């Protein structure tokens, strides 16, 4: 690992001020630190945001669950309020990585990184989340831009994620047997008006599968998507799963999710 300057920011303003083109915000460090150790990433400055009190914590209102960006996965999975309001979000958090990762990794870090097989981005899409940054509010649908790419600007810091509480929801994933990241993860959420089917792991970036959403909005039953033949041309293909297999898994996991709702 190359040398870097470590800063601990008191508040978002200071964190943002310290940011430069060769800096990174450090929350749990579950991706940043290993990337630096492997020499895949080097930064001049790391700006630790864990000590910014405002960034941690969970608030539940009648319609939304708002989670501070530096809230750890374990805090989300252990929260009785989250479990009550959106049980699927709680179980998603419980299934991220391993205990070590869940004890350090944060929701803001996961979303800002936008790993194509991360779990949380699918929750943001399915639960019509609003991403609150120190500068603005961004709809989840406009936040995730592509592989490891988001709408965040340099120095822009996620402060909280506000999820809409659905009528019913479930997250189902087919994990990579080695890394246990999602080969395919499908988050189905039934809201008052419509149904979202957010898919992670299958393509270069999380997306809402319109075809399944439409079918399920008409009839919220796994039979309405059974045997659906999804277009696999944009799906990822690697030694763990071909595009065709992923396409099939998306439907299978979506069906499981609907049945689990």
């Amino acid at each position, binding site marked *: 690992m190359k040398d870097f300057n470590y800063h601990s920011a008191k508040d978002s303003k200071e964190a943002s001020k310290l940011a430069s083109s060769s800096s990174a915000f450090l929350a749990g460090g579950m991706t940043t630190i290993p990337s630096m150790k492997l020499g895949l990433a080097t930064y001049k400055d790391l700006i630790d945001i864990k000590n910014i009190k405002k960034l941690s914590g969970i608030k539940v209102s009648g319609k939304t669950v708002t989670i501070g960006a530096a809230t750890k996965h374990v805090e989300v999975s252990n929260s009785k309020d989250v479990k009550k309001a959106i049980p699927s979000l709680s179980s998603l958090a419980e299934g991220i990585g391993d205990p070590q990762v869940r004890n350090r990794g944060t929701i803001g870090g996961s979303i800002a990184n936008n790993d194509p097989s991360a779990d949380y981005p699918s929750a943001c899409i399915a639960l019509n989340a609003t991403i609150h940054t120190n500068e603005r509010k961004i709809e989840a649908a406009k936040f995730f831009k592509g592989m490891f790419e988001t709408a965040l600007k340099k120095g822009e810091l996620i402060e909280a994620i506000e999820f809409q509480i659905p009528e019913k929801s479930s997250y189902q994933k087919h994990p990579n047997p*080695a890394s246990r990241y999602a080969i395919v993860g499908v988050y189905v959420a039934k809201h008052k008006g419509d149904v979202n089917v957010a898919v992670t792991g299958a393509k270069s970036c999380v997306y809402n599968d319109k075809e399944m959403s439409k079918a399920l909005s008409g009839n919220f039953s796994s039979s309405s998507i059974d045997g659906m033949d999804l277009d696999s041309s944009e799906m990822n293909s690697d030694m763990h799963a071909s595009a065709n*297999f992923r396409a*099939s898994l998306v439907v299978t996991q979506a069906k499981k999710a609907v049945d689990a709702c």
Partner: protein
Amino acid sequence: MASLVGSRVERKEDKRFLTGKGRYTADINLANQTYAIFVRSPHARASIKKINIDKALKSSGVVSIFTGKEIADDKIGGLIAGWAIRSEDGTEMKCPGNPPLAKDNVNFVGDPVAVVIAESLAEAKDAAEKVEVDYKVLKAVTSTADAMNGDTIHEGIDKNLCFDWLLGDRQKVKEAFDKADKVISIDIINNRLIPNAMEPRACVADYNAASEEITLYTTSQNPHLSRLIMSAFGNVAPEHKLRVVAPDVGGGFGSKINVYNEDIVCSWAVKKINRAIKWVAERSESFLTDIHGRDHVTHAELAVTKDGKFLGFKNETIANLGAYARVFGTVTPTYLFGPCATGVYEIPAAYTNVKAVYTNTAPVDAYRGAGRPEATYTIERLVEKASMELGIDKTELRIKNFPTAFPFKQTLVHTVDSGDYVAGMEKAKQMADYKGFEARRKESEAKGKLRGIGVTSYFEACGIAPSAAVMSLGCGVGLWESAEVRFNPTGQVTVYTGSHSHGQSHQTTFAQIAADELGVPIENIDIVHGDTDKGTFGMGTYGSRSLAVGGIAIVNACKKIVEKGKRVTAKMLEANPEDVEFKDGEFIVSKSNKKKTIGEVAFACYLPGVRDEMKSPLPEGDEPGLKETSFYDPSNFSFPAGTHIAEVEIDPETGHVKLEKYTACDDFGRIINPMVVEGQVHGGLAQGIGQALYENAEYDETGQLMTGSYMDYTMPRADNFPEFNIGYTCTHATTNPLGVKGCGEAGAIAAPPTVMNAVIDALGGQEVTMPATAEKVWKACKNLKKSNAKAA
């Protein structure tokens, strides 16, 4: 006194390990030590045009940089193959040179070309990045099956062929096949595995300029053997000036048998710079440069009669050696493989032909089971297929072909001294509720799942091995083992063994044996191993040999102690030595109440003579002191055997294979410590099931390792396994005084075919290669659905 052999004695080593007091190589830090980083080839095959170290030398903290040139100039030898194998046509095997630092050519990704030694690890790493190596990249050969058609990797080794070996009689086999009602044939791949010991390899080299002694602390399964190889072939130092210490070692599974490049380079360089050198592998280096295991491509055939009698067996295998032939690299796919490939069956005619090929991949060598898992996979997949094609129950077909009497003279090499394969099969069936399977299959079907059951009956040849046998088969050394038992004057015992414990619990089990033999409390017995300065010599731990060879050496040394004790007691108590009996730590003169404890006798041996009340004269011809040594060379291998049964449930929608039940019924002969044996069985099963369902080392066509980290190489985890159902039958080995056989490799040998037979049974007989990943199984399920639809 109750016997300790056979009881669940808690492990003496656990206090150290569980409280963080273990002392591994990486824990060793010496005064003024430097840090080594190896510059490794990023290419699978290339020639080295030029190495420029100028920039790196100027980097901060650099002490020294060495390349293959300096090593060659000092006439330091390379790594070697320990067994000489001849081809069918009588020619010697062909082995390329394998210098510790590549000088002219690199042959796999990770092949080291230079070592950078610096004041700190970070400085060594920075400097290593500045070493400029100019490579001419050449086309790599990576496929096992096609290696013989690829470019010649090593000059003078045509078709990349190390040897083309035959065991058995082709003519007899042909005659047997001519008589067959049916021939079952199979094409299988034994997937390449990476051993993944929990502790990565490491070494620390030290030099004493005054005594000219080099000390190498290293992660070895066999420090004495390492010293011998480094001295005799590496030319690092004469044996008496080289001390090799393998302290606590966190797992080996065969990957730490070999002397590695880093051991030789650090031991050589330490003298040059006269400062201690420390090197610790990073996990990614372990993936790339530890020896790998398995990697066979096999076509096998079984000739049968219509009522299921086996007549003949053919085995044509291509075995991948990787880039170089290493210590057990050439014997693993030959004598550890071929003789076991006929399994537990009476097959009148058989042969195994192995073509061992070089490729631009990491060297392949002995990995837990070494040759025997590949052999068992071959025959047991074939037998399972025969049962499907003949329509004979898989357990009945096996029993029909089991030997009826012991000793069982195998078709090819071994004479198995003892066993009861039918008893093992019957017990395994009972344990697994084999009868109830069809009902469980129906339950699974009702849920939309596919259920399968798989059986394997195996035997293995372990406890390697008799020197006379192994040397006649080409081994470069005799595989005896030594032990030394020393009494202190005040009665405690230190046992020095040439075996090495890197997870096997010798500190406990060997102490149990010595405690029983000597009648000394186990607390008063210490087991010392892993240091060439302590103990006479040793061949080390692999091939499930520690107990069956090393343990017997301890028994024999203890027996010599008892014999001397009898003579000393007789002299002290004025009796005939023949009238002295030894029991539970006491020497008793028969038909009298006169006796001495072994502690009193030990004391007397150290204070021989007569003074006042002390009367301990030594018998004539006996020297003072109480210490005995044994070099034990067994008369035969030992042959554990057993039957394993697995049950899987498959989700056809996702291809997910759930291992529902796993039953292992093994015959390990006498068991010293059931708790330790359970641990060994569990570990072996985890690795065997890992091979069947999860693990796979995959190279791309350019020779880059695609599974170079835990992100892509699937190590099985606890939640991948059901509760293991473990049981035993017991026939004692007749070839050693303890009746022991060995248990370390059984799980890894039996589990792959057991699990795969179950998967393939669930898939209606469709072949799937290991590992049976979700996608492969999903595809097979789709095919099954199609063919079922057609049939309907």
